[in-house]
């Protein structure tokens, strides 16, 4: 399959993924980037939650199918309770 050109632009991808997970999965904005927390990367954990909700393969990585769903226009209500 053709690779979506945007996927190759890491910076844009990461920004899309972060804002999507902040909007709809309560990903906390990382106010202390210089601190490394232990345990799973919170972004990967939220990504898995989102992939499971949409019936995607749960990889914890922003693969093409996941990016495709994130780009779809949608309702502004979070997929999880606040």
């Amino acid at each position, binding site marked *: 399959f053709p690779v979506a050109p945007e996927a190759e632009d890491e910076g844009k991808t990461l920004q899309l993924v972060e804002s999507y997970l902040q909007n709809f999965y309560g990903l906390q904005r990382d106010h202390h980037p210089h601190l490394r927390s232990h345990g799973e990367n919170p972004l990967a954990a939220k990504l898995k939650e989102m992939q499971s909700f949409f*019936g995607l393969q749960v990889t914890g990585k922003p693969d093409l199918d996941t990016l495709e769903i994130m780009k779809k*226009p*949608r*309702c*502004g*209500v979070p*997929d999880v309770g*606040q």
Partner: protein
Amino acid sequence: YMFTPGNPKWKRNNLTYRILNYTPKMRQADVEEAIQKALSVWSNVTPLTFQKVEDKEADIMISFAYRDHRDNSPFDGPNGQLAHAFQPGEGIGGDVHIDEEEAWSKGGNGYNLFIVVAHELGHSLGLSHSDDPGALMYPAYSYTDPNEFLLPQDDIDGIQAIYGKSNTAVQPTGPVTPEACDPNLTFDSITTLRGEIIFFKGRYMLRKHPARTETELNFISLFWPRLPSGIQAAYENVERDEILFFKEDKYWVVSGYDIVPGYPKPIYRLGFPKTVKRINAAYSDENTGKTYFFVADRYWRYDERKKSMDHGYPRKIVSHFGKIGRVDAAFQKDGYVYLFHGRTQFQFDPHAKRIVAQMKSTSWFNC
């Protein structure tokens, strides 16, 4: 379906709504019609009623808004977030906010206002997002022709779990999203498409690529927005790289993602008599250039090169294909013809002129 956390619901069934402002992109009457239709989606399946009010506070206040509109949830301009709504409750509870910077329409271009408002009203009534890809409450926008819209069963189950069943004598039901490994899954039609196999069911298509194990479920409208749902027959003319779709007495020719201008056309142009009202199934043999059309218990044979029906048809299906009953869907792959009847699939060898195997209809989905 999922309830909004805390299970908020309205304590009354007779609710009020008010339209605070309108978008300049649609006629005011079309906005009102879209909203009324969106409300009836939910009142048709519950005891709920919605009365329009002017100049006073309503339970559900509907408005078009720009970017930051003072509710801690700013809109983001064109695309992205289309609208949002608040769970049942006083004040802002139940209100629907629509992003004015979207291209609202009453048809298939831009974003259809009816579909989006119907979804938001689900939130206004206490439903959260569903993970059923066919549900109205699924968070990603997908277009369906409002005239063909039927509230899916998942949404009916959800809203009735909150407000109870409808007061009508006959309870309304809705379409169920097909699941590839459902043993009871049958198909409206099937066609090959550039090496893939596309199975049609209602407004959905299940897409099977030979190199991928999983099956992809999409709306037909994702590829072909102007095609109807419920495609009754389809076949690929490999030579011309075209797909022909049939529903009732009309057929469409598609090349790639585009419908060839001038279609749909009556099926009678192909040589069917007026007594034929619909086509049940079709497949095309790319080696012989002959296309087989199945109608009730008979079949016709069409010569793609001569562009005319062969003489001596229709003939009885049983006379050529054996005792397989009526054919719901058919396609040819790797020299064999696969004929579907309900939950059964027959593999027919056109050279040996006999059925060589019988499988379940879902055998292609690696269940």
